[in-house]
């Protein structure tokens, strides 16, 4: 599954130094306008037939990244490249519709992403019509049935007339995925597609997406707060914390040799990755790792945003933002512990052996 051959391909969608700030209205006169620094300096690339997982706890900016890539809203700064060309944010209308034909979003909550007044056929027929894939009602019906079969909603003829309230969460999410496929996209941005679903059907949906990824050669961005399912589904993992990317690389590398203290923390509370299937069936840990939570993004901590929670925080961490350090081929992290240029770093060997141990001990302490 993971070979470097895939990397030699051109990425189909890239994000380069994306930033997003949401201005917040302060009614007080005279106060300076504030904003939520939701995403800071995010760079990623998606390849055909390959999934990249974006992992981080709730509030870390994952949805914001997906929505910028789907062009629900524009980045404050930074570039989005589709097939190597910079996207012009000013061009809307036809250009935007053409972009959306190739990049589709699957929402987190299938209970709110389908319109209660429309049936399955209507939901799937619209992209077919808008993008001109179906010319008449007969073609629509044919293709809708084909799509329903593709997402294993069978017998398709029965589902075609169903309304959302007649479907289970898993079935709704399959409809949402089918709607994304109806546009015949190259990229699917799936925003926590299984987190709202019953644990017993999460694995089915992941397997469905896995199959589609291979059969349709889709480039997947798979957003999750559960690192175990990230490893199960995705070739690459990106870890995000408080709007910043903190670590990235091949899934196996990141899971087996996590470098950033936050990744280590995530893994220390995640169940054994060997037992992913069991976890998927029993329910993943939805709990947020110990030691505080995501800091305020209106006035985020200076320097490394993780420093208030980091067991290894050093003086420099509070002052400077750590740059990206390559720790192994294709595996990088933003942490001063690995930054050779910083004098007062701790020996890296100490971290690798002890960090998980420390984090686990800490976890136990807090549990008491």
């Amino acid at each position, binding site marked *: 599954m993971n070979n470097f051959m895939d990397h030699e391909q051109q990425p189909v969608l890239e994000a380069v130094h994306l930033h997003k700030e949401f201005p917040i209205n302060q009614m007080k006169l005279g106060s300076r306008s504030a904003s939520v620094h939701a995403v800071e300096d995010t760079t990623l690339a998606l390849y055909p037939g390959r999934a990249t997982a974006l992992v981080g706890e709730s509030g870390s900016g994952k949805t914001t990244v997906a929505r910028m890539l789907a062009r629900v809203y524009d980045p404050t700064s930074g570039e989005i490249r589709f097939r190597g060309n910079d996207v012009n944010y000013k061009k809307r209308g036809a250009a935007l519709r053409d972009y959306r034909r190739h990049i589709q979003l699957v929402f987190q909550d299938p209970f*709110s992403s389908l319109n209660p007044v429309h049936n399955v056929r209507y939901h799937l027929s619209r992209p077919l019509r808008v993008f001109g894939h179906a010319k008449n009602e007969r073609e629509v019906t044919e293709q809708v049935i084909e799509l329903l079969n593709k997402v294993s909603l069978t017998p398709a003829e029965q589902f075609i007339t169903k309304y959302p309230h007649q479907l289970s969460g898993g079935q709704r999410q399959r409809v949402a995925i089918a709607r994304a496929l109806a546009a015949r996209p190259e990229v699917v941005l799936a925003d926590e597609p299984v987190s709202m679903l019953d644990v017993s059907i999460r694995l089915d949906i992941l397997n469905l997406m896995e199959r589609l990824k291979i059969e349709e050669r889709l480039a997947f961005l798979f957003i999750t707060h559960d690192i175990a399912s990230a490893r199960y589904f995705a070739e690459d993992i990106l870890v995000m914390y408080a709007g910043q990317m903190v670590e990235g690389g091949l899934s196996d590398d990141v899971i087996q040799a996590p470098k950033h203290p936050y990744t280590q923390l995530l893994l220390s509370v995640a169940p054994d990755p060997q037992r992913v299937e069991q976890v998927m069936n029993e329910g993943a840990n939805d709990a947020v790792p110990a030691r505080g939570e995501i800091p305020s993004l209106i006035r985020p901590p200076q320097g490394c945003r993780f420093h208030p929670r980091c067991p290894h925080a050093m003086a420099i961490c509070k002052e400077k933002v750590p740059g990206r350090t390559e720790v192994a081929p294709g595996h990088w992290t933003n942490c001063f512990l690995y930054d050779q240029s910083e004098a007062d770093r701790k020996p890296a060997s100490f971290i690798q052996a002890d960090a998980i141990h420390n984090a686990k001990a800490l976890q136990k302490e807090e549990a008491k």
Partner: protein
Amino acid sequence: MATALQPVTPEQQNPVAGITIVHNILKWLTSNWKMTTGTCILVFFILMAIFGPLLAHMSPTAFSNDLFQPPSAAHWLGTTSKGEDIFAQLVYGARISLLVGFIAAIGSTILQILFGLLSGYFGGLVDNILSFVINVFLILPGLPLGIAIASFAPNNIKGPILITILLTFTSWSYGARVLRAQTLSMRSRDFVESARSSGEWPLRIIFFEILPNIISVVASSFVGTFVYTIGADVAFEFLGLGNVSQSTWGTMLFWAQSQQAMLAGGWWWFIPPGVCVSLLCAGLAFLNNGIDEVANPRLRVESKRKLARRKKEVVA
């Protein structure tokens, strides 16, 4: 979910879809006792407007020799001082009064939907312009303005058409604001955003994704407007701004007033149209309240039994 009109559930390939729809509408119209009451009253007046004239054996404008007679077997509701049959006037008048109120309310609702949904959905410059127009109409005092215009209008254009137009344009702005607010809250709903991100056309999102979900608000707004147009129509005509040679509920009151029916003790002349207007408006108000209750469950006064049952569920 602000859907009162629950999605019609087609039992797989229903051969008689039309019957299902009628059945569903009837079911919806009788969702609670207020709506049932309102519907009954409304239906009564509609039947009266359609079939009443068949029962009247006189033209509403024909004179007879029975001048100013109280109700009798010959004239069920008595006669005017010129000998016109009041029952005939009442049932023929129901036609015009209902029709004027209904058409004005429909026109007004169309304006409300266009202004409210477009400004709420598009925001920005479109919203600024449309909101400005809404606000201008909002601060214009509708009824006095209508009276002023109608009183300057030459006699030959006075009548139902002028009144319909006046009522339409003086009644839409408040509802447009309500619908704009509803649309604003719908705009960022997941299903709207997912329609948008799957490439859907904006007008299609407005009229096919958002509108069906706020249809109960539209319905309630329509009924509220209908109350206003019926009442204001009668008020205009009572003040002599209608076509006084035509018989409607408003002109009946106008003539009763100008012939001093009240002083002469001719209660049968002004009470029937007065009761009709009040009863119809009350019925529509019931309907309006009932729809609001369905659309906004927080307004629902739950029966004690239901509350008790829910408590049990929480404990269990």
